[in-house]
């Protein structure tokens, strides 16, 4: 063993050339012996150091260490490329995942809202939109003989308006006192004072002037 290193050392130092046959033997031995290979590297490094010929950057060979590290590294399989790896989709999908549950919640809300709307649609929306918010007489229902001509004298229209107001007021009073059989005409109730606080029919806007 030491003989082997001695020969190698002599070869590196250039003192082995006398013996050409053993020279090639040493070279063959170095090629086949891993220990000798390492020695070969270090002898040369030592020689360069002794001769002050070391390079500025000592370039140690790390190839085998990398290879060794790769050997012991657990296998990492690169994922297959899918449509999700497309740049735009890739950024959208996580967002969509994030938003998914929000979306479920939102759709529940929407469903409830739609349900509520449909449930109430015929009830609330239609009639109160359909019926214009104009108190007083409207021609909304099927006219009986709706002859609202404009040649009616003004005084007559005013007269009729007053009369209809009186009827409406009286109707509400009658409903109020419904359980009572009223005696003729004026009663003990202070009729003239009982004003209905609910919107009185106001026919001013609707009666042609």
């Amino acid at each position: 063993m030491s003989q082997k290193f001695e020969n190698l050392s002599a070869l590196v130092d250039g003192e082995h050339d006398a013996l050409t046959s053993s020279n090639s033997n040493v070279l063959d031995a170095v090629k086949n012996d891993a220990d000798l290979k390492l020695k070969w590297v270090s002898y040369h490094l030592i020689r360069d150091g002794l001769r002050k010929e070391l390079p500025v950057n000592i370039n140690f060979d790390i190839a085998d260490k990398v290879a060794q590290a790769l050997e012991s590294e657990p296998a990492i399989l690169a994922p297959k490329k899918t449509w999700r790896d497309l740049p735009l989709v890739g950024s959208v999908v996580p967002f969509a995942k994030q938003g998914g549950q929000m979306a479920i919640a939102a759709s529940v809300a929407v469903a409830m809202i739609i349900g509520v709307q449909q449930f109430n649609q015929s009830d609330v929306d239609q009639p109160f939109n359909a019926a214009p918010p104009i108190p007083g007489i409207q021609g909304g229902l099927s006219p009986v003989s709706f002859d609202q001509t404009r040649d009616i004298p003004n005084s007559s229209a005013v007269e009729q308006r007053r009369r209809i107001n009186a009827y409406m007021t009286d109707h509400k009073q009658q409903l109020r006192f419904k359980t009572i059989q009223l005696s003729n005409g004026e009663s003990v109730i202070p009729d003239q004072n009982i004003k209905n606080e609910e919107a009185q029919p106001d026919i001013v806007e609707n009666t042609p002037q």
Partner: protein
Amino acid sequence: MLKTPRNKISSRVVLTLLIYIFLPLQVSAQEEPTNNTSSNSYPSDSAQAWLVKMSDAVKSLNYSISFILLKPGVDSQPYLWRHGVNEDGIEMEQLNLLNGPGREVVRIGNKVSYFEPNVPPYSLQSSIINGPFPSEIFQRPEKLMQSYEFIMVGRSRISGRSAQQIRIISKDKSRFGFNVWLDQETGLLLKMNMFGHEAQLLEQIQITGLQVTKEPDPFFAKIEPEMLPDVVSFSPSAPLNSLWTIGYIPTGMTIVKRDFRRLSGSGEVVEYIMLSDGLVDVSVYLQKRDGNTSQENLVGTVQSDTLLTIEHGELNITIIGKLPAATANAIAKSVRRNN
């Protein structure tokens, strides 16, 4: 990776919020066994049985109900309606209009006292408060069965409670229909819609809060019955000799009142006839037309009332009430002179 749980939490928060948003208004009912003492001879799942149940519940339970009356063209009117039965079995009822100067009606037994702005308080001898509800639906539901068909529609959710829907349709299709929703548990009214022939909504009562309690509301304990205004008495009206007869009266309707009145607004004397079927009250005014009271024929709606006024023979006839204009017209046209 860390985001997922947070997403779940946040979505749960959102869902919870939604549930709270859509939760019932503030309907909370304390458990109260439903009164079963009624003479309910109808099958338990029939509409009639439900109406009787409602009627019994309205008369016998202690409750506090908030509701809103909606009519086309006017603001919504919120009401508070409380009812209790005291130890002596006397019914106590309160109806309070919550907006504006307010209007308060208190009923103790058969005495109904009205407290209104600009009017001295007064009392009437009556067993019902004449409020937004049809006058007799709670008192005598049997009477309605002469004029209306009752159809079970199904269950739904109203005011956060399980409700039984019943459709009420006049037998001769001459009046508006109603949809009522009754509380599954107590039988109390939760919602009431009046609808026209095309199913358009004309008037709506929506209960927004319902509390049924074991004891009457403390409000009733504060009422001193002797402090209530005196009952205004009326002498019964004398038999009337009218020249006129109404030829057509819709099925189930009867003449409940008939007299001569001087209209407080115009001072004119008219013959007054009230027709009622228990759900709808209709006023018919007959006025003899003299030379200068010419008028045009009119039909229209004032809120949810139909108003029709026509010249017919020697009369001006005005009809006001919650009924279709065609029916009002038919009634008006059927008035004829007695032979």
